[in-house]
């Protein structure tokens, strides 16, 4: 340090090794603490033990919807994930195996867990352990193409009895549902005679496409088009007629049916409970 003879200028200070040392060492200590705390949490999350009561779900990302398969339970559904509530006494966490059928996606339900990406040619996994029942909203968090924004995700955390009942109803095939309604029977004929079955599965019928969501229990879901619209007959009809009206850029083609055929097809969809 020195004092300038020029009184217009303040004292000219060049630095101080002690001060530099202080503001180097203290941040280093903070960083070390932060690292140790972070490393512990990383290990707790990523290297957690699997409890024997855990539920396994395979989540497959598609442009622009979610496929959920429950190996062992015989359930396949889309966009709306049902899992049982867990508690600290007898934990039943859900382990998700994450795959992608096309581009990168990311599974993010902010109130349940951080996100993990779904990447083609790669198997990722994450787990969630919710302690409260209810509906948890999420959506795709990795840009995956035109309709990334409307690739929404709903997780229903059910009580154990509700979850078991849901599994029972979902694991049934559609043949069990009697087609009492002539209109719906006509709709089924249209469904099975057009390109619908190239992409969609209705278990127990000839429809076994894998490109689009499984429709066996379509009416058990609250939303269609991965959350772009509520599941009402009017929306279903519009979705079949002109998907771009609900979700521009979705990969569902417009079916170009007559008004009468549209009504029949919608009636058939409404029987898929």
């Amino acid at each position, binding site marked *: 340090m020195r004092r300038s003879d*020029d009184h217009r200028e*303040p004292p000219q200070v060049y630095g101080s090794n002690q001060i530099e040392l202080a503001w180097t060492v203290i941040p280093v200590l903070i960083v070390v603490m932060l690292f140790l705390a972070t490393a512990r949490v990383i290990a707790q999350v990523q290297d957690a033990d699997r409890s024997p009561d855990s539920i396994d779900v395979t989540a497959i990302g598609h442009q622009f919807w979610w496929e959920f398969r429950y190996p062992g339970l015989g359930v396949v559904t889309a966009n709306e994930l049902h899992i049982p509530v867990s508690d600290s006494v007898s934990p039943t966490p859900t382990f998700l195996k994450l795959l992608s059928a*096309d581009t990168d996606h990311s599974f993010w339900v902010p109130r349940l867990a951080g*996100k*993990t990406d779904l990447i083609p040619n790669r198997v990722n996994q994450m787990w969630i352990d919710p302690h409260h029942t209810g509906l948890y909203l999420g*959506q795709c968090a990795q840009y995956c193409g035109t309709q990334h*924004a409307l690739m929404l995700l709903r997780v229903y955390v059910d009580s154990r009895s509700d979850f078991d009942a849901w599994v029972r109803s979902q694991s049934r095939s559609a043949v069990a549902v009697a087609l009492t309604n002539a209109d719906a029977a006509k709709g089924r004929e249209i469904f099975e005679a057009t390109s619908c079955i190239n992409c969609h599965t209705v278990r127990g019928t000839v429809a076994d496409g894998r490109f689009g969501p499984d429709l066996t229990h379509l009416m058990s879901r609250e939303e269609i088009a991965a959350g772009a619209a509520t599941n009402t007959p009017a929306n279903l009809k519009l979705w079949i007629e002109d998907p771009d009206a609900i979700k521009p850029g979705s990969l569902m083609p417009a079916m170009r049916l007559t008004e009468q055929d549209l009504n029949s097809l919608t009636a058939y969809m409404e029987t898929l409970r």
Partner: protein
Amino acid sequence: MASETLAIAPTGLSTRSLAERLHEWAVTVDHKRLGILYIGYALVFLVIGGVEATIMRVQLAVPNNHFVSPQVFNRMFTMHGTTMIFFVAMPILFGFSNYTVPLMIGARDMAFPRLNAWGFWMSALGGIILYFSFIGGFGLYGAGSAPDVGWFAYAPLTSPAFSVGHSTDYWIVGLLVSGFGSIATALNVMTTILCMRCPGMKLGRMPLFVWMNTVMAGLVLVAIGPLTAAQLMLLIDRYLGGHFFDTQAGGSAVIWMHFFWIFGHPEVYILVLPAFAIVSEVIPVFSRKPIFGYSIMVAATVSIGFISLGVWAHHMFTVGMTSYANAFFVASTAAIAVPTGIKIFNWVGTMWGGKIIYKTPMLFCVAFLCQFLIAGLTGIMLATAPFDWQLGNSYFVVAHFHYVILGGIVMAVFAGSYYWYPKVLGKMMNETLGKWHFWLFVIGFHLTFDFMHVPGLLGMPRRVYTYEASRGWEIWNLIVSIGVIFQIIGILLWVADVIWSYYKGEIAGNDPWDAWTLEWHTTSPPPEYNYAEIPVIRSRRPLWDLKHPEDPDWKYE
């Protein structure tokens, strides 16, 4: 002769035609003209990138908006990101570097003037190729034009199966070509600094501006290579049947991420080091004190350069790396906070006990300090992987990196523009307009980017063209969009100040700020050859020595 050849000088232009003057600019190899070309070119793209940002903010101002289609929105964020990084931030900082470095080290030009011109025109060509996609490309589903794969263009969205048409090819080739330009410029800056310093300018006497640009140039040389390689591999995938990133044929999407981010994270420091460089010149002059802890600042800069090469996968905490890999990148990323913190402490140490003069350049530096500090703190939050699992790819991240780029880098660029304008054009910029620019822009910045953190915390992912009303995001998005209006007015006032001062500004003289580095020793604007006589220096502040012969710096170094 000297002043006649400066086409920018407002007087004495009588005889040469416009075509002749344009031709002079097109064929120039003068580092000062190329610097101005870089900056002018960046400003054109700043306007374009700003329009793209504005379109996005109009779309997101209210939920379920139909201002633009998802296809257009996706092109807007892809082009906004690519433009702002590669065709605004890089060229504008290269412009500062080109103009100022030779003057600061007492050189008459860059080491390779022709390579310098080649670098600029390659960068310019890259931008033109990218934007030609609006005419020549077709986006997803054959419906569109500009690239729509996001600025980091994750595989396999860029593969021919998901990106039909040529929009992605324009993106690849545009960046490839501008990357060659960047490498040429970095090589030139590095060589100039190592070989062209005036007598007496040892490495330890170089202004910090020059030191920081040295490290920037080193990072460009290391980091652009992987990007170039990745772009070539992608082109091979798209045209020659390669399968590097083609997941349908066994390629790896994750390897693209590694290639991109091993470029992408050093890139952040390629941009922020020249911003640090500007701030490190302005703060001492406007505090009337030398930089606090010069040698520690140099050491911190060099260590930032090295550490920044080992942090890239903190962009990839959610891709399913092992817990050990995640922990490593947490450690390296948090470690970079130490040298960065040292810098902030030293800038504050420089101001401490100084006679601070709050002219416009200094105002922007003070804003830089506050905002860059917050950007650094959210950066440390995101560096802790579990936090990133929650908020990575959300609007929290968008707010964080705009805090770095706008709150840090752009503020420094504004400071630098007010600081060196008198040197470049020989006129002072208007202080009143400058202060209006400062306050409006800072208010707009904080309205937009402070509030942008909130929807991220509430679960709003980035890159969505619309959102539902029920998620509690709407009020925050509205405030964010309103902030844009203030920023636009601020930028317009800046442009107005630049133009008005060119015609009506006060004559600056050689050294309007009573500064200490060599560039203020020559005339404003400097002659084509910079210095009639190569200066000889004896300390880090040669002009202080000249002004205070009774108490020179060299006695104390």
